[in-house]
Structures are given as structure tokens and as C-alpha cells.
């Protein structure tokens, strides 16, 4: 028998050589101080940073992002031109400014106000109009040092930015649902809110879920940008700090790669099951599954003919 796929064997040989070179590099180059890396990548501050600054931050930012995103998407699709305009302005701003820059801005927003207070707007000015000096109608307030630095500033930056992207995803999902569905619901006497909650959003989910999984994975990686707020209880901040303190920067960056690989892999597995679960139990799921089966049968056939062809 002649060799059927000379190209394939050549590729395997090249890859084998490259892999061997890479392993050789990992083992022999002193910049990879593996023992140092393993000793340091599980230290308590790093684990705390991982749990709070990476995991908790991802979950919170996504929860707020999805919630605000749905609201913005509904505003964007409303009949009211003012709501539509506000929603457009929001998505425009938060999608146009890079996340890194946004986080740097939010980290320093305390410069604008020393205190954040809630109450009657322009109270001092109103007071002056009526001849009262220093009128203060404030309900409650915080020192912005307490809330608008570190974790909260980072969370706000990531969540508000995420909301803009989620709004576009949710809008596409809502628009993917046939208009006849809304009409049928309204003809039954359902309100707009009920129609959205019970009829439109559940059907939009199948379009919304997959990109939301991608957004969550992107968010997990983007928590490393919190270094620029800065947020100190965060994985990359801590690894970076150890590296700079010990002048062993490279092993700690490798540790960061390994941590993010580990965390995103968990999310990828979760995403796989979520998408599989979401296809089930829906009206057209049976048909979709049939279609899928048809497609795999087709590609299987295509593969076979491709194998047979050259021989």
C-alpha cells in the first residue's frame, strides 16, 4: 500500500519537533522557576483574590449587567422616543469607551465628589433663591472613599459596561421572536409586561443564552483589568504583586495563565451543559434535533466520500 496522506505525516513530524522544543524550553529555561511558582500560586491572598476579585466579581457584574441590559433592551424597543434615545446613548457610550479606560475612570471618580448623597437636587441653589443660606435637603449619603474605590468602583465599571453589550444581545433575542407571538398574547388580554415575561423572553432565551455564555467567559478574563482601578483583592493584582516584590515576574505570569485556563475551562463545560439543557423541552426542540441529526448524517457522508476520493 502506498502512503495515502503524505501531507498529514509531514505535519505530524513538524508538530512533534515543535512540541519537543517547547517542552525542552519549559524544563531547561531558568525563567520558568516551577518550584517557586507552585510555592506561591496557592498562597492565601491569591486564593482570596481569586474568590472575591475574580469569581465573585464575575458573578456580580454579570448579574447586574444582565438585569440592566434587559431594561436597556426593552427601552430601546419601546414606542417612547425619549426612552429609545436614552438607551441608544447608553449603549453608544459604554461600547465606545474601552473597558480598561472605563475602569481607570471609575477608579478615580471619587475625585469628582468627596461625598455621594441622595436627596433634593440643587437644594443649595434653591435655598438661595428663597433667601436661605446653606439649605441641605439630603436623605442619606456616603463618603465616596468608602463606596467608590476599589471593589465597588470596579464592579460598577464592569457591570455598566456589560449591560451595554447584554442590551444588544437581549435586543437581538427579542427581535428574533415572531411578531405573531406578541399579537396572540395581547389578543388574549395579557399586558405588555406579561407578554414580555411569559411569551417573548422565554423564546428569546435560545438566542440570548449562547452569547451570554461567551460574555461570562470574557468577563472572567476582564476582571484582570481591575488591576487598573486598582482592586487589590483580585487574582492578577496579587500574582503581579508577588512577582514584582520577589523579582520573579515571569513565573507569576505563567501562574496567572494557568489559573485563567483552569477557571475558563470550568465555564466552558458549564456553557456546554447549559446550551444542551436549553434546547430541551421547547416546542421546536424535536425538530431542531432532527435537523441536527440530518446535518451530522450529511457531514458523515461527506467525510467518507472525501476519504475515498484520493485513493
Amino acid at each position, binding site marked *: 500500500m502506498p502512503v495515502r496522506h503524505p501531507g498529514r505525516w509531514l505535519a505530524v513530524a513538524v508538530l512533534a519537533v515543535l512540541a519537543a522544543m517547547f517542552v525542552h524550553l519549559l524544563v531547561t529555561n531558568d525563567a520558568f522557576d516551577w518550584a517557586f511558582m507552585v510555592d506561591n500560586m496557592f498562597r492565601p491572598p491569591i486564593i482570596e483574590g481569586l474568590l472575591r476579585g475574580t469569581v465573585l466579581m464575575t458573578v456580580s457584574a454579570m448579574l447586574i449587567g444582565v438585569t440592566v441590559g434587559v431594561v436597556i433592551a426593552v427601552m430601546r424597543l419601546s414606542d417612547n422616543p425619549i426612552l429609545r434615545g436614552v438607551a441608544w446613548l447608553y449603549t453608544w457610550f459604554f461600547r465606545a469607551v474601552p473597558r480598561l479606560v472605563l475602569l481607570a475612570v471609575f477608579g478615580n471618580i471619587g475625585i469628582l465628589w468627596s461625598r455621594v448623597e441622595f436627596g433634593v437636587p440643587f437644594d443649595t441653589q434653591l435655598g438661595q433663591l428663597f433667601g436661605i443660606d446653606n439649605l441641605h435637603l439630603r436623605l442619606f449619603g456616603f463618603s465616596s472613599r468608602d463606596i467608590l474605590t476599589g471593589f465597588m468602583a470596579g464592579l460598577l465599571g464592569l457591570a455598566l459596561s456589560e449591560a451595554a453589550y447584554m442590551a444588544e444581545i437581549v435586543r437581538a433575542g427579542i427581535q428574533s421572536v415572531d411578531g405573531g407571538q406578541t399579537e396572540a*398574547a395581547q389578543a388574549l*388580554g395579557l399586558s405588555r409586561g406579561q407578554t414580555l415575561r411569559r411569551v417573548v423572553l422565554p423564546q428569546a432565551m435560545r438566542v440570548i443564552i449562547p452569547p451570554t455564555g461567551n460574555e461570562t467567559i470574557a468577563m472572567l478574563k476582564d476582571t484582570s483589568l481591575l488591576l487598573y482601578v486598582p482592586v487589590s483583592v483580585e487574582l492578577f493584582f496579587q500574582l503581579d504583586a508577588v512577582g514584582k516584590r520577589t523579582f520573579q515576574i515571569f513565573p507569576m505570569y505563567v501562574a496567572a495563565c494557568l489559573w485563567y485556563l483552569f477557571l475558563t475551562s470550568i465555564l466552558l463545560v458549564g456553557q456546554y451543559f447549559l446550551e444542551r439543557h436549553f434546547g430541551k423541552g421547547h416546542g421546536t426542540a424535536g425538530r431542531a434535533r432532527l435537523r441536527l441529526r440530518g446535518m451530522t448524517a450529511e457531514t458523515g457522508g461527506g467525510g467518507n466520500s472525501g476519504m475515498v476520493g484520493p485513493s
Partner: protein
Amino acid sequence: MTELIVPAQTGAPAAESGLMVRAEQVHKAFGPLEVLKGIDLEVRAGEVCCLLGPSGSGKSTFLRCINHLEKINAGRIWVDGDLIGYRERGGKLHELREKEVAAQRRSIGMVFQRFNLFPHMTALQNVIEAPVLLGRDRKASARERGAALLERVGLGDKLGAYPGQLSGGQQQRVAIARALAMQPKLMLFDEPTSALDPELVGEVLDVMKDLARDGMTMIVVTHEIGFAREVGDSLVFMDGGVVVESGAPREVIANPRHDRTKAFLAKVL
């Protein structure tokens, strides 16, 4: 079983006049396109009114005005004595709030050409969704009534089926059961059999005949001349946004007076 479907015909304003639907000079335009140019229509309680006309003549639009899915530009529509979509105060019309419009729609059932069932719900869930959500019924008794309604339209064995698993005829019968679950006073049908394979048309028409026999007031947009002749109490022929001709179905079909009616009937008969 019959009392499940047909609510008692007791509406006082309708009883006075005997009218379930009254439309007066209804005008509707989409931008510059004038679709309805002054439609008058009266349907008595318990009657079946068949609406015929060529495609684009405004039949669907008129039907959608009756439950305020479309806002009319001029004229008035009453259903069972209630002015649809507006409140008259001091000789002026004020638009009803969204909630009030929704409340009016609850007593008007609608069946669409393309069924518009909710694909993420089973047949039974489709039927009980609105009554449960709107607090008409508790879940348990709604399920019982919903099952009885599906039994009534011949789908007692399909309660747990999703729309994607049903034939077109079966889907349309679920859609009829869904509309009936709100115990409407009036049912609107917009070409309910036009999207069906010919062999499935009969099963849907049978359910509608049954409903008519039980005294439901119905307005049916259809091209099924046989149905109009057999079941209809009145026939209205529309073309170009106006009512061209109306009367008893047999009479209009046998002796159309207008050329446009003649031309249309010649095509569909």
C-alpha cells in the same frame, strides 16, 4: 360539555339592541395608504358573520381593529355595548389606558391564520396560560377546564404535546381552545384554514361549526364559500377598504349584485 364553551349571553347593552358588534364609519390608514375607508357593520349576538374579499382589501385590518390591535383613525366600534379602545366623555374621545384595552380584549377571542401558538408551552399550557396569569382561574381548575376544552376540539390525547409536534390542523384547534379558555363573548377568525393542507381544513371547520351551533358570536374571514353558505348568518363582501355588498350568504352567493362580487366569486367558487 357545551356550557363549558359558551358563556351565558347576558350582556345588558347587547340585550337591549341585540347587537354584539357595531362598527360605524371605521377608517384606518397606514401612513399615506388608506386601508379602511368607512366600514359599517352590525353583527347580532349569536350570529356568524362571514367576511369575504380579495387579498389586500382590508379584512385582516378590520378584524384587528375590533380588538384594538390596530388603532382606528376615525369612526367607532362597539362590542357588547362597550366602545372599543376609547372612552367618550363630554362628546370627546379619550384613549383607554393599556390595562383597560387589555381588559376589553379578554372578552374577544382571536384565531390567526398562522396559529401563533406559544411554541415553548404544551397544548394544555397554551390553553391555561392566560386564565391563570390573569387570575381568572386557579391552576388546578384551569387545568381541568383546559383539558375539557382540548377534549372538545378532539385533542384530548395531545395535552402534553408541543406545537412543533402537532399538525397544522391540530395546532389551529389548540389555538381555538386557547381563545375559548377566556370565555369570550365574540370570536374573530382570520382565515383560520388558509395555511392548512387541504385534507386538514375539514377538522378545523368542523370545530367552528360546532361552536356556531352552540350560539357563539363569530366574525370569520374566509375563502371557504361552502362554510359561509352553510354556517353563516350574514355575508359581507369587502373590496378596496369598503363594504361592497352584504346580505344573507345564500342570496349573495347565488345572486351577487355587484360586478366586483361576481368577479371574486367566479374566482373562488
